[in-house]
Structure formats: structure tokens, C-alpha cells
């Protein structure tokens, strides 16, 4: 069976009524690859590609609100540096035209470029149920374990929100210039109050925050004096970069050794913090 609701209320009703054997699909760029490889053989689909408002982009009271069906091609145009650069690095035009942010979060790959950028931007994801309503979940609580999330089978990812006033930087190390899955990816966000958030991709089971590295920079986050002193002196950057290398927990795989990934965490954190400092 193929279900193709045209509004979110109908989509949520179907999601709650239909069993988990009916697979939610938005762009299909992860779901259909798994089918073509024979890894998954779904018989039935709940297709969200026609839901009205799925791809809306709003900015209200200092908050960006993106519909789950916003594509990488759309995100590439946002004036949010880390997210736009991450989106531009995804696949090629064919993937960016259909791949969505809900799909990136839903797959919950540790290499999810959109997920890593959003984590640095202090994003929350809206999980909705037809009767229980919506709940906003911070991304660090959304990603539970390798490709496991807080999404319940009867819920849909409906929206994502994040503050619009963060500065952010991003970089991905991969093997080529396009269609380039990350070996290591890093995004750093800085709030207007000067608090740093460092997110790393492909170095653990889920997109992760480098909390130790953040602590070097933020200290006691209420301590403005600490931040003024800590203001990204080379020596502070080096300590944060080292902390990131130590807390990363990558594995060896076909793309890279774990050791290389650890070393690159240090390089990326150093490079991106300098970029934030020097503009």
C-alpha cells in the first residue's frame, strides 16, 4: 500500500493507525537505498512528500522554524552558515533536491551532516502524535544510540527549531569534493552570550557534542568573567582541541582509521575556533 496524505493532520492520523511495517518516507534517499540493497523490504509506505507546509521556513522572534520536509537545497540558501555549508556538501544536486532534514534526523547516522550542524545550533526537533500532541526534544536527547532515536513508531518528525542569532562554522573531511560522506565533520556554534557548542560527526555512535572541549571554553557558563578571559587565546583553543580529540570515540571502518579521526577532531576544532575568532 502507498499512502500519500496532503495535510499533516491526516499524516499524523495515518501514522498512529498504521503499523510500523508501513515505512515513513519523505525524500526516500535513505529508505530507497536500503531497499535497492535488499537491506529492507518494506511493502507499504506513508509518503510525506505531498504534505502541505512540510517545506516551510519561518523566522519568528529570533527562532528559525523549519518544516521536516525542508530539503538540503533549501537549507543551502539559509543565512545560517554551518547549516547552509553542511547542506551544500550533501550528495550532489539530485540528492539535495529531495533529501530532507526530517530524513537526516530520522536516519540518525553519526555522519548526518544536517544533524551535526543542528546540534551545534542548539536545535530541537518536534515529534508529533495525532492525539498526544507535540513535544519538542533537544537533539542531544533525540539521538539515543547508533541509528536509534526518541521518535516513537506512532509519531512523525514535524518541525525543527533553533535560535537564529548564533554565529556558526562548519567543516567536513571526506575523500572527494562531491557525493562525499564524512570521515569527520565538525560544527561549532556561538550564542550571542558567548557560549560555545561543539558538535562532531562520524566519531561515535551518534552525532555528539564535545562537552569537555566546550567546558574549556565556557567554564561555568554563568561566569561572564571567565569567558572574557578565555576569549579564544591560542592556548585556550589548543586545550579545547585536545579535549575534543580525547573525548571522540570513533571506530575504524572502510572510510578511515579511528586514530586518524581522533587527530582530525583536534585539527577541526582548532581550525574552526580560530575561524570564529579571526572572522
Amino acid at each position, binding site marked *: *500500500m*502507498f499512502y*500519500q496524505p496532503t495535510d499533516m493532520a491526516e499524516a499524523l492520523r495515518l501514522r498512529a493507525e498504521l503499523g510500523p511495517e508501513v515505512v515513513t*518516507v519523505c525524500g*526516500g*534517499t535513505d529508505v*530507497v*537505498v536500503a*531497499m*535497492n*540493497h535488499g537491506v529492507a523490504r*518494506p*511493502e*507499504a*509506505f506513508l*509518503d510525506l*512528500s*505531498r504534505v502541505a507546509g512540510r517545506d516551510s521556513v519561518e523566522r519568528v522572534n529570533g527562532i528559525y522554524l523549519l518544516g521536516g520536509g525542508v530539503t538540503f*537545497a533549501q537549507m543551502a540558501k539559509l543565512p545560517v552558515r554551518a547549516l547552509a555549508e553542511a547542506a551544500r556538501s550533501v*550528495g*550532489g*544536486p*539530485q*540528492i539535495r*533536491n*529531495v533529501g530532507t532534514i526530517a530524513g537526516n534526523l530520522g536516519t540518525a547516522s553519526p555522519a548526518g551532516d544536517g544533524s551535526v550542524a543542528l546540534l551545534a545550533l542548539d536545535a530541537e526537533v518536534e515529534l508529533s502524535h495525532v492525539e498526544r500532541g507535540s513535544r519538542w526534544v533537544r537533539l542531544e536527547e533525540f539521538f539515543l544510540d547508533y541509528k536509534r532515536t526518541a521518535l516513537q513508531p506512532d509519531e512523525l518528525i514535524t518541525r525543527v527549531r533553533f535560535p537564529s542569532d548564533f554565529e556558526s562554522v562548519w567543516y567536513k573531511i571526506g575523500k572527494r*569534493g*562531491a*557525493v562525499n560522506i564524512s570521515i569527520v565533520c565538525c560544527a561549532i556554534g556561538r550564542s550571542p552570550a558567548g557560549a560555545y557548542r561543539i558538535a562532531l560527526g562520524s566519531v561515535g555512535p551518534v552525532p555528539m557534542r564535545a562537552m569537555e572541549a566546550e567546558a574549556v571554553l565556557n567554564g561555568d557558563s554563568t561566569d561572564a568573567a571567565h569567558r572574557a578571559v578565555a576569549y579564544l587565546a591560542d592556548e585556550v583553543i589548543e586545550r579545547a582541541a585536545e579535549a575534543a580529540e580525547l573525548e571522540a570515540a570513533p571506530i575504524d571502518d572502510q572510510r578511515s582509521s579511528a586514530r586518524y579521526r581522533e587527530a582530525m577532531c583536534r585539527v577541526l576544532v582548532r581550525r574552526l575556533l580560530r575561524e570564529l575568532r579571526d572572522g
Partner: protein
Amino acid sequence: MGDSGGAWHLSCTVNGEPVEAEVDPRITLLTFLREHLLLTGTKGACLEGECGSCTVIVDGRPINSCLMLAGQAQGCSIQTIEGIGDDKKLHALQKHFIATGAAQCGYCTPGLIMAAKAMLDANPSPTEQEFTTAIEANICRCTGYESIRQAIRDAYREIHG
């Protein structure tokens, strides 16, 4: 394929012609084009979005037909290599791919042409970078890309005088 427990009624437009069909919801747009409509110009190769040989244009945008479920093309306007020109009147891209030797074994050519066409249709003044980005997810193992890029630039010049 076994019983899918419900065919899906697909209506869309392919190369300007309205199409109505009952499809198994598990098939991709690539399979629909090739096996149902017998439009075999569109090629499948990697089936994971890495090679671009299955590229078609859906509502003006290039997509990988191997990764789109046929049902997701509902109501859409689809363009394939068969729809852009023929032996009597080639599209400028087809003409210049032949002229520069950008097609050798030819397997990647329909996908490359559709990826390039989507960009040329949407962008009246592409930068050098945009010429490259348009085909960054299309693999050719024969030509080395320089002749392909040349063919696309020549087609652009012909189209825009």
C-alpha cells in the same frame, strides 16, 4: 514481485504526455520508466545515488530516479532523455556531446545530459562553478569530464546565442 496488497494509481506527465498506470508501490521511478513505459534511455547502475546515470528531471529539478518511489511522482511532470530531442532534431546538449566526443560508451550520457539540462533550464547565466556543480554527482568512467564540460558550455552558448 508478490502481492503488494494494493496497487497505486499513478497519474503523471512524462515528456509532455499524460500517463495513468497501476503500479506496485515498491517500484522506483526508474523501474516505472524503463519497464512499464519502456523508456530505456534512462539508465540504472549503482542504485544508490552515487553515479547519476538515472537522472531525470521532475518538475524542473534533477533527481535520481533510482531513489524515488514511482508513487512519489504523482501529479509530477517528468522529463527523460527521450523527451528532449530525437534523431531528426537533437537537443543542443545531445549535438555537442556528439561533437566533442563527450559520449564514449554512452552509459552515463543520458543522466549527464539531463543533469546539465536541468541546470541550463533554471540558470540563464551559470558561473564556472555552477557548470561543475551541475554534474558533480554524475560519474563517467570513459571521458575524463573535460569533453563533457566543453559540450555543456558549447550547448549553453548555442542556446543563449
